[in-house]
């Protein structure tokens, strides 16, 4: 008897050859007359091992990876003769990278089939919804509030306050909007969750709907994620035909339904009010606040806007209780965070841990240092608007407040690692260029300032002498200030973070002496 085999359908696993491995497995098993049971599951998020094939054993699943189609004959040979294979990793759940994680949100990652309702239910699915139906909206809001959950989209605003606000506002129609625009480089947790565990997001949104009295929801997914869109649309159908959406959600007697909308390649549509305008069929232009979306959001109605990970945390909080959740973390950063290791890192992937581990533990421990083997230069934390953090500051705990205190941010938890070959002047210039490209155009400091920023950096790099460089540094810093304080949203307001940190910690890349950049 051949044991059951598992291989991810995740788009990144496929981008590194999972489908080719799958095809090879199927055809070669047929040639050898081996009965093959192959399940396509979500990914564990141990991406450096993808394509990662897992095989049932009495002790648990054994991993093989990273595989190519060419490895398939020898793997099948090893399996049918019970011999060792050089790419065998042993028990997957004993791999230190995974074993030391605290997987709450990604508890099912790599284990279940994304569109199998049975798999989902067998692993705790819909327990949170059942609990929410049983205790009612008021207590659901209290649970979310007490859990200490903060928005995972970047701003880290306490979720419970928003739930209470939307719940407490009277309106003919309220909405739940899921922000799945995940535009930050270095992040992929939303994608993994939507492709791998779509019912979890649906369950979270249904709980939010029942609690706040919203009867309709939208998931706004970036167009760069077509697999997530397709998986979610299929999952919605399945959820609907099983009574988890529709007129009587989970037996609550309340109605809630939703649909997927696709973005169109605009980074600014990740900002919540620009996203709402985009959903309304307009250009994605940032709105001035107030009014806040919780009071006047989509089509002017009260709207709960949350990131994918925030909404997907609700089922767990309801099922296990607020106290269970807040027992993870430190200070005011409670629960777990799916950190994402990217860039020039040996072991890129998803690391879900309680807040409070240090950046060094993440990058050097889990990440194993740079992929190139060259010296570590810096890590950009929190996306394109996050600061470049030099290794000297890597002992900072991953906690919202600790990062804010050093002029950085955790954002959506993405970490881009760089070795000593990455030119920070080029990266600073790119930050400004990106801002110019993606600005919604509403405020002058952002729209014009970002273009000026590119020019100033070019002049700084071209300056023939120290006097010329000094002059450009003064202009650049002044420009960063103007943008920081004169912009409506964080695109213009925080692009100074990557620019100023590059200048401060890596002056040599700009042709400067340390003292010149410091002044």
């Amino acid at each position, binding site marked *: 008897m051949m044991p059951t085999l598992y291989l991810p359908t995740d788009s*990144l696993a496929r981008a590194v050859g999972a489908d080719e491995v799958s095809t090879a497995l199927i055809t070669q098993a047929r040639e050898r007359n081996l009965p093959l049971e192959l399940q396509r599951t979500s990914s564990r998020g141990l991406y450096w091992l993808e394509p990662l094939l897992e095989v049932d054993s009495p002790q648990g699943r054994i991993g093989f990876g990273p595989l190519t189609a060419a490895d398939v004959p020898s793997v099948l040979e090893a399996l049918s003769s019970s011999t060792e294979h050089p790419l065998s990793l042993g028990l997957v759940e004993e791999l230190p990278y995974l074993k030391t994680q605290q997987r709450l949100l990604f508890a099912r990652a790599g284990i279940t089939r994304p569109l199998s309702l049975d798999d989902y239910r067998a692993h705790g699915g819909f327990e949170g919804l059942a609990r929410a139906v049983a205790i009612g909206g008021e207590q659901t809001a209290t649970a979310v509030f007490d859990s200490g959950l903060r928005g995972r989209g970047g701003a880290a605003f306490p979720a419970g306050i928003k739930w209470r606000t939307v719940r407490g506002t009277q309106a003919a129609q309220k909405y739940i909007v899921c922000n799945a625009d995940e535009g930050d480089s270095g992040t992929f947790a939303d994608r993994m969750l939507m492709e791998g565990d779509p019912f979890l997001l649906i369950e979270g949104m249904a709980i939010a709907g029942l609690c706040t009295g919203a009867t309709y929801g939208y998931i706004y997914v970036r167009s*760069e994620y077509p697999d997530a869109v397709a998986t979610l649309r299929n999952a919605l159908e399945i959820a609907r035909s099983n009574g988890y959406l529709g007129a009587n959600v989970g037996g609550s007697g309340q109605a809630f339904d939703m649909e997927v909308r696709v973005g169109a390649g605009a980074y600014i549509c990740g900002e919540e009010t620009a996203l709402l305008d985009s959903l*309304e069929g307009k250009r994605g232009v940032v709105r001035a606040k107030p009014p806040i979306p919780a009071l006047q959001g989509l089509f002017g109605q009260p709207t709960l806007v949350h990131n994918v990970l925030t909404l997907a945390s609700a089922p767990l909080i309801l099922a296990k209780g607020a106290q269970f959740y807040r027992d993870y973390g430190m200070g005011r950063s409670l629960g777990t965070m799916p950190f994402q290791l990217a860039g*020039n890192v040996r072991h890129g992937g998803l690391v879900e841990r309680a807040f409070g581990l240090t950046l060094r533990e993440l990058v050097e421990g889990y990440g194993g240092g740079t992929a190139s083997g060259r010296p570590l230069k810096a890590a950009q934390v929190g996306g394109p608007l996050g600061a470049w953090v030099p290794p000297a500051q890597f002992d900072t705990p991953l906690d919202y407040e600790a990062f804010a205190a050093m002029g950085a941010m955790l954002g959506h938890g993405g970490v881009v690692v760089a070795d000593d070959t990455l030119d920070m002047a080029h990266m600073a210039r790119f930050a400004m260029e990106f801002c110019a490209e993606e600005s919604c155009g509403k405020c002058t400091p952002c729209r014009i300032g970002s273009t000026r920023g590119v020019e100033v950096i070019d002049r700084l790099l071209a300056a023939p002498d120290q006097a010329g460089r000094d002059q450009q540094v003064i202009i650049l810093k002044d420009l960063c200030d103007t943008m920081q304080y004169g912009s409506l949203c964080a695109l213009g307001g925080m692009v100074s973070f990557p620019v100023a940190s590059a200048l401060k910690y890596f002056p040599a890349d700009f042709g400067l002496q340390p003292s010149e950049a410091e002044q």
Partner: protein
Amino acid sequence: MPDVELHLSVVNTLLERHKGTPGALLPILHDIQERIGYIPDAAVPEIAHALNQSQAEVRGVISFYHDFRTAPPARHILRLCRAESCKSRGAEQLAAQLRERLQLDDHGSSADGSISLRPVYCLGACACSPALELDGRVHARLSAERLDALLDACREDA
């Protein structure tokens, strides 16, 4: 039937389908582009009329979003990721390789209509940077050799 008429019948069917959809403009534009390959100019007045908006508003939306095209695309669309994670793994060298081999700039289309280059800012493949998307399919852990092989494959079926 000439193109315009064919396009208009597609457009009108789609407009009909989205009649009751709130905030329908983006779904409509996506559907048109998926069916026709781009947003033909003749579609604009139809959309504006159906949504009770001005043509300027509709054009404003089309030009705001990077995804929407107003001319037919090349046979192959290659979008190389140029965001931070991929840059830290050599995306700029790959961009130079593309420019050199195709003799195109970062936004260019080859004269024979076989390939268009576009930058993209993150494909969610950052754990295996660098990455690109070719005709809707993501390829990660790119190297100079793999990029060459992908381009060879494009040329073969050109």
